[in-house]
């Protein structure tokens, strides 16, 4: 790290501000909330993956002692959820998946609510279901939504750059494959929970783990058909999000309506099985991809067609091609690109946003194909990447203006630490049962915000009190990543005080300024710039007052460790809190509060998916060394080496935590995690059979933080919250191929799949 004593707070391994509360059991999560008269809500789920609802009889349930209210679609406003507006919170005429919400109950305790659900009688007329998106595309497939002919969701992405068809002819080497990546779950340790409370005058307070409180506020107002100003969103501590709370989902709307009808606050908490069955997953993709290159390794073309299983309703999963496209167009330099999608309704559960938002899928495809291309050309896979490496100052086919770019350094660092030269390409010479291999993969991801909405901004209010203590009120929530700590460090550094002098308030829409939401690794960058902007105003004000009090010109003053010094005459100094009090307690006194809103100088993409949506871009490379037991198919990751260009490491300890967590999620994606779904039913809705990595499944991880000091970010920072999980599966996939000497195109590479592939390859 390149601080060399320049900063007091930046670059320091400062513990997370709320770590003590969390380590002592004082943190309050939504499931911990207990309000006066609070009832417990539960949802009745569909019995069929596709059926007409003929009748719902709630009379017996309503009579059960302890039940306050039972609701069905008739109790809901007619509005629908999701940007495609195809998802009624409670289904009235039809169910389209097994996780469809049919009715809900509020009762004095969870047991009573569960018993009430059993008393609700629903008459269904089953309809033929369809679960495979390619089958659902066929003419004779069952129609899932009347307005979506051929089960096609209107959402469609098409991108063209250069001349792909001519480029195919120009290529010396062409490779073509189909990849299948399935459903994985967020596995937040806290099951989804929210609390709704109405006051007597029609104002609603939601205690929600939402990642987008202001968009949620507006969307919820739309759905409930009330004014947004009547909704207050309070965010308790969030027990894991990873993108799962980026949309407004039916359970939260149901919770609000239950509370309204019951006249009591209602808490609605999922069981772990509901968490597996009834929350959105990472978007599965089937990708047919073709790539070509010259003999000398110049990448000539990429042509990808993505089929998305949209599931029964539309949430953010349908929009992941927007980001998946980024790796196809902009990871390494390629001259001709074509990208197309088909988004198909099925009777499976729908998908949402999940860490990386399509980039893990896209990077897997691009980086596996890079290895396959290298092999066909007869070129070293690292050389191929270095030859086509992204560079600072370039503009990618989608119009991303790359400012800083440490990709070359990341590639070289990882290759060196992986001992690439000695360990790569040894698979074919190994004769034992255990084969070893190494592989690496890189990524490009937004690092300075992401203009995917009308505003990519965040507001900040900074207040310094009479004791020199600062409160930062920021629009940005902390979802466990540590961003609130980084924001405190930024604010403290700007003001010349210590991180411990800053309190961060970020959990109440009635208090905090607007922020679009926690996604796209944007928080520290955007909210950090906003905080810095506001803090700079306070600082200017302090220096002005100090200049009067110390009789020194403003330009000569600096603040260092809670004191204002004259650079020329250091014996002229005053403690910051004394200055505040002097300015406050006098005639025509003042206090020190300032606000700022930072909305980055970026563009929304046009209809052709071109536009510089981020101020800066993060890069990185991960490398894996693996061992494959060719008799059992078991893959063991011996070590991960990762190098990430983070601009500047504001808090290396917190960044490491994010990267380590991301790698563990990536290892799960590569080797272990598979939501097993048969005929629309989840067969492994528990932690025993859905294989999330345990501590023993983790290899040692070597981390190198590359600092390219991007001037746009607060103190040079670039976002990296998602980065840790983006290239992991690709690196491991490449390493396994290196060990085995052949390629696989599906994830996860569980032992049975690997062993079957080994046997098939032998034949």
């Amino acid at each position: 790290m390149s601080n060399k004593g320049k900063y007091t707070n930046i670059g320091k391994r400062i513990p997370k501000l709320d770590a003590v509360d969390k380590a002592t059991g004082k943190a309050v999560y939504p499931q911990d909330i207990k309000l006066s008269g609070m009832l417990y809500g539960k949802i009745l789920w569909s019995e069929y993956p596709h059926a007409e609802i003929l009748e719902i009889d709630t009379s017996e349930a309503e009579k059960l002692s302890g039940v306050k209210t039972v609701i069905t679609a008739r109790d809901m406003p007619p509005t629908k959820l999701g940007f495609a507006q195809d998802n009624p919170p409670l289904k009235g005429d039809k169910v389209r998946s097994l996780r469809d919400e049919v009715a809900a109950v509020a009762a004095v305790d969870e047991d009573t609510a569960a018993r009430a659900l059993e008393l609700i009688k629903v008459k269904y007329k089953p309809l033929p279901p369809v679960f495979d998106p390619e089958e659902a595309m066929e003419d004779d497939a069952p129609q899932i939504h009347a307005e979506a002919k051929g089960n096609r969701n209107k959402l469609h992405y098409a991108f063209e750059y250069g001349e792909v068809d001519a480029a195919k002819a120009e290529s010396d080497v062409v490779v073509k494959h189909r990849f299948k990546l399935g459903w994985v779950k967020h596995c937040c340790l806290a099951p989804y929970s929210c609390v709704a409370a109405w006051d007597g005058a029609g104002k609603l307070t939601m205690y929600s783990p939402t990642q987008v409180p202001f968009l949620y506020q507006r969307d919820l107002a739309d759905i409930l058909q009330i004014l947004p100003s009547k909704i207050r969103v309070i965010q308790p501590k969030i027990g894991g999000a990873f993108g799962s709370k980026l949309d407004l989902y039916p359970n939260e709307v149901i919770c609000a309506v239950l509370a309204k009808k019951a006249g009591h606050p209602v808490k609605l908490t999922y069981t772990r099985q509901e968490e597996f069955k009834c929350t959105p997953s990472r978007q599965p993709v089937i990708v047919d991809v073709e790539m070509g290159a010259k003999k000398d390794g110049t990448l000539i073309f990429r042509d990808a067609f993505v089929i998305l299983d949209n599931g029964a309703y539309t949430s953010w999963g349908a929009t992941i091609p927007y980001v998946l496209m980024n790796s196809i167009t902009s990871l390494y330099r390629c001259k001709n690109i074509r990208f197309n999608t088909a988004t198909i309704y099925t009777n499976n559960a729908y998908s949402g946003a999940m860490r990386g938002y399509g980039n893990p899928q896209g990077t897997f495809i691009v980086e596996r194909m890079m290895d396959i291309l290298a092999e066909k050309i007869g070129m070293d896979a690292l050389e191929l990447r270095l030859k086509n490496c992204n560079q600072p100052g370039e503009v990618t086919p989608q119009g991303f203006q790359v400012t800083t770019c440490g990709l070359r350094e990341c590639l070289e660092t990882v290759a060196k630490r992986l001992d690439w030269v000695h360990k790569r390409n040894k698979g074919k010479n190994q004769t034992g049962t255990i084969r070893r291999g190494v592989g690496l993969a890189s990524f490009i991801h937004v690092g300075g915000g992401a203009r995917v909405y009308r505003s990519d901004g965040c507001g900040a209010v900074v207040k310094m009190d009479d004791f020199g203590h600062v409160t930062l009120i920021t629009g940005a929530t902390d979802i466990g990543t540590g961003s609130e700590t980084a924001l405190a460090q930024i604010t403290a550094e700007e003001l010349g005080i210590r991180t411990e002098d800053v309190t961060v308030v970020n959990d109440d829409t009635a208090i905090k300024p607007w922020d679009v939401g926690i996604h796209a690794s944007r928080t520290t960058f955007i909210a950090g710039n906003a905080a810095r902007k506001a803090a700079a105003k306070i600082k200017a004000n302090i220096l002005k007052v100090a200049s009067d009090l110390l009789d020194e010109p403003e330009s000569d003053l600096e603040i260092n460790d809670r004191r204002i010094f004259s650079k020329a005459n250091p014996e002229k100094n005053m403690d910051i809190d004394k200055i505040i009090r002097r300015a406050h307690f006098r005639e025509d006194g003042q206090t020190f509060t300032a606000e700022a809103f930072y909305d980055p100088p970026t563009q929304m993409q046009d209809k052709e998916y071109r536009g510089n949506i981020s101020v800066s871009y993060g890069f990185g490379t991960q490398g894996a060394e693996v061992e494959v037991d060719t008799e059992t198919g078991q893959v063991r990751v011996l070590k991960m080496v990762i190098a990430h260009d983070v601009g500047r490491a504001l808090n290396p300890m917190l960044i490491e935590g994010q990267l380590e967590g991301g790698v563990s999620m990536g290892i799960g994606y590569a080797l272990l995690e598979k939501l097993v779904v048969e005929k629309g039913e989840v067969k492994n809705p528990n932690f025993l059979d859905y294989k999330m990595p345990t501590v023993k499944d983790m290899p040692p991880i070597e981390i190198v933080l590359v600092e390219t000091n991007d001037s746009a970010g607060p103190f040079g920072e670039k976002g990296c919250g998602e980065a840790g999980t983006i290239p992991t599966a690709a690196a491991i996939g490449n390493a396994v191929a290196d060990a085995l000497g052949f390629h696989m195109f599906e994830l996860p590479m569980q032992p049975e799949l690997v062993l079957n592939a080994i046997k098939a390859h032998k034949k």
Partner: protein
Amino acid sequence: MSDFEYHSPGTLEEACGLLKKYDGKAQVLAGGTDLIPDMYYREVAPEHVVSIKRIPGLNHITYDESKGLTLGALVTFNKIIYSEIIKENFSILKEVSTRIASHQIRNLATVGGNLCNAAPSADSVPILIALDSTVTIIGPGREERTLPLEQFFTGPGTNALAPGEILTEIRIPPIKPRTGIVYFKHTTRKTLEIAVVGVASLIQLEEKADKCCMARVVIGACAPTPLRIHKAEEMLAGKKIRKKDIEAAAEAASKVVEPISDVRGGDLYRREMVRVQGSRALKETLSRALSHK
């Protein structure tokens, strides 16, 4: 979870009486690590739960050089792991116990419960069968009987207890000299897993020669009950075991088992893993036998 009447008898007689009285409507609660999740998932809904935790005399680990090891039914897996007696004389049981579930579950889960729950994949069972264990059972009239553990399992989740009977003790004969014992648990993740395939193997060599005088091969998770593979044992006993004998025995075992396909593994894969892990287990077992005093 449905409601039930909770009983906490203080004696075995009382407990057996309750189980006989409420036969078909009652479940025994020992560690609770199987029963509570089953009730939570609505797989069972007993009207009566008979907690036997308070009953004295079921929590002992004793060892005698001639009689061997005795485990009370309520001995937890962590008690086994931390026991000096086990460490000195039956370390294989410590080894097996560490493969079970988690530290927290091992603080609750009892060896008696693991047997009575009779999951085909139960980790403690293959090794206990390989060690020729017997179980002691007490009935409502205070009558006591013993049964070879091999005969205790009657199907997936069912055991040989008659109405009103409780398993009280497991007895394991002393380990003879020149004996190697191994348990291999094949799983997807490295911990917190139910076995996809479990292999317990035992080889006892003659005192003066390296000839095998007794072999045991027991496979878990590949049949309705843990399965002792006599055919494999016959292929090893009476021989100076070579690599090809081991491979033949493992191959034989893979043909005898009747695995199912479920979310944890396919039947063909399980069969293959019986062969692969069986072979590896036997190699390790032989190696241990050769170095065992």
